[in-house]
């Protein structure tokens, strides 16, 4: 009896204790969007490992011990909730949809992936961001919007900008990123209408670009064009009309300033003249540009159609220039059966570029110079044109009259381009997809140049003489045609079971390109445009030429994407590429890559906190390659048509051959290895998001055109293409975006990105430092590529001041008391004797003077919406890059014009400048005088728009109408005294301004109408 009582008491006390210390909570979890119960919701007791999940009916039951008071409810796609239990025993929870975790889908190579699953470094720019800007190609429009991507453009209409992703990596001139337009690989998107683009995905690091293997070295830009949308026919019309003008012109001296300078420089005054010509004003103008786009789209559940027509007209800022382009696009998709899908994207572009030249070559008559070069050098004391007669600049100073340079010939380039791809996708099983895509790109261009006949007499010029003339008119016509096809076959397997999510992609691609061109010219063709055909010319003066090019590539690739529990990510890629451009012993190369990711914010231990809405860490390593060398780089070819007239003029010449190119028969792939690690985060209900990314990129066996010693053999351009160096880039990219919806009427975003990059040459493959940047005059080589320094660093004499008097010159002595610059005069530069040998030697006394690569480049983009108004501003800038003012440096004659600034600030006995020399006739040594800071900040785009309220529009049967005003390149803040600090070029000799096209500013207005 007592035992039973004791037992009961014990049990009771235990029970009472249990009652005091633990309790059970239960309830049901439903979704706020549909009110349905959610099975599988994780419920954890905060601060412990204890947890449970909801059952099929969304119901749960959990035991809490004493002191445990908080439960955390989480489920993918919904916002986590933290609930204080208090005394309640039943807690029903309603979970809200989590907008940030709604999977943004990104196009990666040969497929799509959820943004959260990506382990590589990619960036995305939406089509609306691109269309807002009045630019020719979409590439120009991404300037400043993507961290790590530097866009360097020239203002010439019809020209494509140069792209550098994460520092100068691949080392060949003109190499751009790989563009993939709807699966078709191409190098040139100037025919793509920006309005046709849905978005652009930029694959920046090696691991994401590795799927493209040999072409991923400078990043990959994947462009997706618009598709039709299910529903009734939707029509939209967009236009954009504005003015373009030259921005940041350099002010040149006027006649009075010029006369003073020339008197001081050469000792004799120029001839008296009543003219005061502003040459840039003569050849430049404000230009119209307009774009119009109409888009029709419609679809059913079986098929979607999209048809776009676009027209662009751009007068260049140089007189007589005009560029016109018409593009047609037809995209459609058909669902043939449930399992078979067929799609077709096709576009046709037709463009005409008239007088769009930057350069008129020196011809046999000595007609000299490019228009811009001549405009820089021509003296203001010569008239441009008066009563139909041109001022004769070449009689006075050996420079062509820039206005006549433009007017004495007529160029027309017509281009047709048909580009498209078609795909067939078969899904025999839910987990298996087979896709075959064939893309083609056919281009045809016709180029006609007519050079007028004119003499250097009083019929053409105010004063006869000089060497700007053409004794006989000449018509040159050339035509080229190229075709490129790409064929991909891909198999994708997709399996999701338990917590494993696996996608496997296996496939092959093949690609081929063929080009063939020919040209013909004849003299004595009349000046009437209707007679500009080769047949009209004098057959006795007929010349012709022709050639072609061809290459092929073949690849095998595989990619595995694995996600465990939606938190742990792995991507592995391997690709084997073969290219016909490399010798057979080096033809094939394997490019592997691997990427890992961890979405920390989905971890259980992160569910309680509400600081991070998203925290993801990723790291990757990959290898990509580059084979973009000319197809004849490793084959010894014989140059023909090297004749000699063994009997003088009495008999025709005998034709001969030369072997005049030194080649590297063992040339091989250039490979880029990259390591990347990053944190992506989101705070404050994803109002503040961003990314911090560190990368290290090594380019091995960089392909460079190296100057060679002339004694090595006969080579016409004295350059050899070889794997010459290894280059390293490492840096940090930071992106921050702030989006805030203050109330229903006002929301705004601020986003900024900054990239810091450091470039260094780490190896020269046993060779000597590579000198480059030879620009003529007395400059010699201005850049050097050497171990430990950035590629293409400026390497010049160091100017430490200006001699003020003969005593100054005498006082500049070496350790032994000998004058270092004995032949210097007051007003000449004082150079630093770097090696201390008492002599200024232009080889041995050079110093490193910075690099054209910026230390940092950044973009800031602001956008705001207030009621029906929208506003956006984007800024872009570079810091820390140097520019070489080549225009100033190649001045070789005392009669060349000078910049106004030099006319005023030059050294004189009464103005003892220490930074400008006395008036001189040019031919100066390469020195730090010509190296200037290229840091700049530019207002890239400023747009204001107003969307009409739909109530107003219903009356006119328009569904949407927005009007806007926009400006491109509105204002640039820069230190550089030349035209532009953005100078595309070859990596070993970039950043040198020689005959650059001035940048342009555009101000435009337009409307977006939806019917």
């Amino acid at each position, binding site marked *: 009896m007592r035992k039973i009582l004791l037992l009961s008491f014990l049990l009771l006390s235990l029970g009472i204790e249990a009652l005091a210390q633990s309790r059970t909570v239960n309830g049901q979890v439903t979704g706020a969007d549909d009110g349905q119960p959610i099975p599988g919701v994780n419920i954890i007791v905060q601060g412990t490992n204890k947890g449970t999940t909801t059952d099929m009916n969304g119901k749960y039951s959990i035991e809490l011990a004493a002191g445990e008071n908080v439960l955390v409810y989480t489920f993918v796609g919904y916002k986590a909730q933290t609930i204080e239990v208090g005394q309640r025993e039943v807690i029903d929870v309603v979970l809200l949809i989590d907008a940030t975790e709604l999977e943004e889908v990104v196009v990666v190579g040969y497929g799509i992936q959820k943004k959260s699953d990506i382990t590589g470094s990619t960036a995305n720019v939406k089509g609306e961001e691109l269309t807002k800007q009045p630019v020719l190609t979409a590439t120009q429009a991404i300037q400043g919007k993507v961290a790590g991507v530097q866009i360097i453009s020239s203002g010439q209409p019809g020209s494509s900008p140069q792209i550098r992703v994460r520092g100068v990596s691949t080392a060949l001139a003109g190499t751009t990123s790989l563009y993939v337009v709807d699966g078709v690989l191409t190098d040139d998107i100037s025919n793509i209408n920006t309005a046709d683009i849905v978005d652009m995905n930029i694959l920046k690091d090696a691991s994401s670009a590795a799927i493209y293997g040999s072409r991923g070295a400078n990043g990959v830009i994947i462009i997706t064009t618009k598709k039709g949308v299910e529903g009734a026919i939707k029509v939209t019309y967009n236009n954009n009309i504005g003015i373009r003008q030259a921005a940041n012109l350099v002010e040149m001296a006027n006649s009075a300033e010029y006369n003073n300078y020339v008197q001081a420089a050469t000792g004799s005054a120029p001839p008296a003249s009543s003219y005061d010509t502003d040459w840039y004003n003569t050849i430049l103008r404000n230009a119209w540009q307009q774009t119009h786009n109409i888009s029709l789209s419609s679809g059913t559940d079986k098929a979607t159609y999209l048809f776009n027509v676009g027209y662009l007209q751009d007068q260049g800022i140089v007189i007589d220039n005009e560029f016109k382009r018409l593009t047609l696009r037809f995209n459609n998709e058909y669902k043939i059966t449930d399992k078979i899908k067929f799609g077709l994207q096709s576009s046709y572009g037709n463009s005409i570029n008239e007088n769009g030249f930057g350069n008129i070559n020196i011809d046999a*008559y000595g007609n000299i110079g490019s228009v811009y070069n001549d405009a820089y050098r021509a003296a203001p004391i010569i008239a441009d044109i008066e009563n139909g007669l041109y001022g004769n600049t070449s009689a006075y100073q*050996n420079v062509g009259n820039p206005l006549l340079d433009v007017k004495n010939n007529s160029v027309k380039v017509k281009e047709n381009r048909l580009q498209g791809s078609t795909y067939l996708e078969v899904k*025999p*099983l839910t987990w298996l997809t*087979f896709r075959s895509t064939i893309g083609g790109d056919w281009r045809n261009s016709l180029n006609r140049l007519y050079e007028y006949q004119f003499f250097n007499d*009083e019929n053409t010029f105010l004063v*006869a*003489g000089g060497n700007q003339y053409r*004794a*006989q008119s000449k018509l040159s016509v050339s035509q080229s045609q190229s075709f490129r096809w790409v064929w991909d*076959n891909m*198999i994708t397997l997709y399996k999701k079971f338990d917590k494993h999510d696996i996608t496997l992609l296996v496939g092959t691609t093949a690609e081929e390109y063929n080009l063939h061109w020919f040209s013909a010219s004849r003299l004595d063709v009349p000046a009437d445009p209707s007679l500009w055909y080769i047949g009209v010319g004098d057959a006795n003066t007929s*010349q012709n030429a022709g*050639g072609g090019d061809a290459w092929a590539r073949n690849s095998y690739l595989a990619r595995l994407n694995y996600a465990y529990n939606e938190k742990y990510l792995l991507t592995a890629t391997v690709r084997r590429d073969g*290219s016909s451009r490399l010798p057979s012993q080096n033809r094939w190369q394997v490019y592997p890559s691997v990427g890992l990711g961890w979405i920390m914010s989905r971890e259980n231990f992160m569910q309680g906190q509400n600081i991070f809405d998203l925290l993801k860490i990723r790291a990757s390593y990959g290898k990509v390659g580059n084979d973009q060398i000319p*197809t004849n780089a490793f084959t010894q*070819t*014989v140059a*023909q*048509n*090297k*004749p*000699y*007239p*063994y*009997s*003088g*003029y*009495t*008999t*025709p010449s005998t*034709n*001969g*051959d030369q*072997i005049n190119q*030194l080649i590297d028969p*063992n040339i091989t792939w250039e490979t880029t290895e990259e390591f990347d690690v990053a944190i992506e985060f989101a705070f404050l209900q994803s109002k503040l998001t961003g990314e911090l990314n560190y990368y290290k990129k090594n380019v091995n066996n960089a392909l460079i055109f190296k100057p*060679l*010693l*002339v004694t*090595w*053999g*006969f080579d*016409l351009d*004295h350059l050899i293409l070889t794997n010459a160096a290894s280059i390293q880039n490492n840096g940090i990219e930071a992106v921050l975006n702030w989006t805030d919806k203050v109330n229903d009427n006002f929301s705004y975003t601020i986003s900024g990105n900054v990239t810091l990059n450091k470039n260094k040459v780490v190896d020269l493959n046993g*060779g*000597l430092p590579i*000198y480059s940047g*030879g620009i*003529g*005059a*007395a*400059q*010699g080589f201005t850049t050097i590529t050497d171990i430990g320094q950035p590629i293409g660093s400026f390497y010049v004499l160091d100017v430490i001041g200006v001699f003020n008097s003969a005593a100054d010159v005498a006082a500049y002595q070496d350790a032994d008391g000998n004058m270092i610059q004995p032949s210097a005069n007051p007003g000449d530069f004082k150079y630093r004797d770097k090696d201390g040998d008492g002599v200024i030697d*232009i*080889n*041995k006394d050079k110093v490193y003077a910075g690099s054209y690569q910026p230390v940092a480049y950044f973009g800031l983009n602001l956008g705001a919406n207030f009621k029906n108004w929208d506003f956006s501003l984007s800024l872009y800038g570079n810091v820390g890059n140097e520019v070489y003012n080549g225009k100033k440096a190649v001045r070789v*004659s*005392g*009669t060349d014009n000078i910049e106004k600034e030099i006319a005023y600030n030059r050294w004189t006995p009464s103005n003892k400048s220490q930074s400008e020399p006395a008036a001189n006739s040019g031919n100066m040594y390469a020195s730090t005088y010509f190296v200037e800071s290229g840091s700049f900040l530019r207002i890239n785009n400023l747009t204001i728009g107003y969307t009409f309220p739909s109530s107003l529009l219903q009356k006119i049967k328009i569904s949407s109408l927005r009007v806007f005003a926009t400006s491109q390149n509105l204002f640039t803040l820069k230190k550089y005294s030349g035209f532009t600090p953005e100078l595309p070029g070859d990596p070993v000799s970039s950043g040198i301004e020689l005959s650059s096209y001035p940048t342009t500013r555009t101000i435009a207005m337009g409307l977006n109408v939806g019917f």
Partner: protein
Amino acid sequence: MKMKRIVSIKFVLLITLLTGLIVSCTDDFLDVPVQGGVSTSTDPNLAQDLVTGLYNTLLQGDSWGNGDVHGFAFISVTSIMSDDASKGSTATDQAIPVGDIDNFTLTSTNKFCESLWSGHYNGIGAANRTLAELKKAAISESQKKQLMGEVRFIRGYLYFNMVRMYGGVPLVLRVPVNEADASSDPAFSVRAPALQVYDSIVVDLQYAVDNLSLKGVYAPGRATKGAAQSMLAKVYMYRASNPANPNPNADWQKVYDLTDAVITSGNYSLATDYATIWRQVGDNNNESIFEIQTGEFDNSNLKIDNYTVCQGPRVGGLGGWNDLGWGFNNPTPSLLSAYEPGDLRKASTIISIDNSGAHVGTVLWDGFRIPSSDSVQNLFYNYKAYTSTALDPSGKPLEEFKNPGDKDRPKNIRILRYADVLLMNAEAAVHLGTGDPDGKVNLIRDRADLAPKGGVTIADIWQERHVELAMEHDRFWDLVRQGNAEAVMHAAGKTNFVAGKHELLPIPNSQILLSGNQLTQNPNY
């Protein structure tokens, strides 16, 4: 259910197989030959064609660019640099680089010195390549020897120019196998001493002497035995005059023997009219030993760029006429005063612009009239560079050019002619105390309508060389050879000439840099 699965698997396999078949591109797919690229194996006459390509390198005239052998840069360093000529044109025109060459203020960055260096090495490289190809060529022994003789003649001539311009230079006699080979062999980047270069030239030219045919066997533009003998004689003459030569008389004997062989061969004689020598009618005449040929190719003039147009009379002042060129290479008063009175050669060498105030103008041999000095930039021009577009009474052009409208008309360059051989023979004879120097000199004086001389001295011969070969690219090097360049220059007003420096051109700075400083600069530059 199961059935369907099997079918589906078969379907999958079929697709995979098809994919595999379609895209199993063979390696052939990637074997794409260079389009339009003729390779060394497709041309059966490669060796002969390379020989023609080598002659083509003698036409290089890209003075501001890739290479110059006989263009404006060549004119600058052989003529403008001497006491016989000054820059010309306007004061500021080409002040750099030509003005610098004229005034001896040139530096190692001089563009013309650089293009002469690369132009000659372009030719030397082509010669080495051609020799390598000739060795393997499937042609007869005799043809091989003839062609190799021609190639070695040209190589010897190019090195002769180089050693006269720069002194010792890298002696490159083979084609490098690859870049590593070229950068590891010092022969490509270290300057051989001048005497070693002379030895190599002698070997090359001797082979040419031994293997080339006589004049008239092949086309006149090809090198001949006589050309090789004359060139070799000249080389020996320069070597003999070198103060470092321990045994000059041995070389003078060679000069005498070689020139004697040319004289006694009977293949050459003096042209009757001195004035016609440099005109088109005088191309490859009886006096010509070796000329750089020009003509026509591909419906246009085939010429040395800028050779004629840079020396043509230039409009200036009041203007009003369509001029003939850029106006460079003006004969100096010093040259004018060197002629004896009555010397026919003066009027055939120098165009004198009418500065009398009478406005008569100057009428040239074909009737072309140049206005008087108030419409012309300079006062004197090189007559030997003149090309004519005038027509004869029947309407046929006096000189034939494919493209006469182009001011830069072709002109053959007379590298060696019989008068030069006679004078070398005379000079050797005086040194050795044998032969008939008076006879040789008087043949030349007679043609110039001058009284004969007896007991000619070296100074007389040098005087005769001066006026006979004036404006023919011989003067500057000859002055340096004679050893009194400084005195003569200073007397002519070129007071910047520094002995021990300005006899040679500076080695181009960019090449020194590219060689990693293995190339050494000439003294005092």
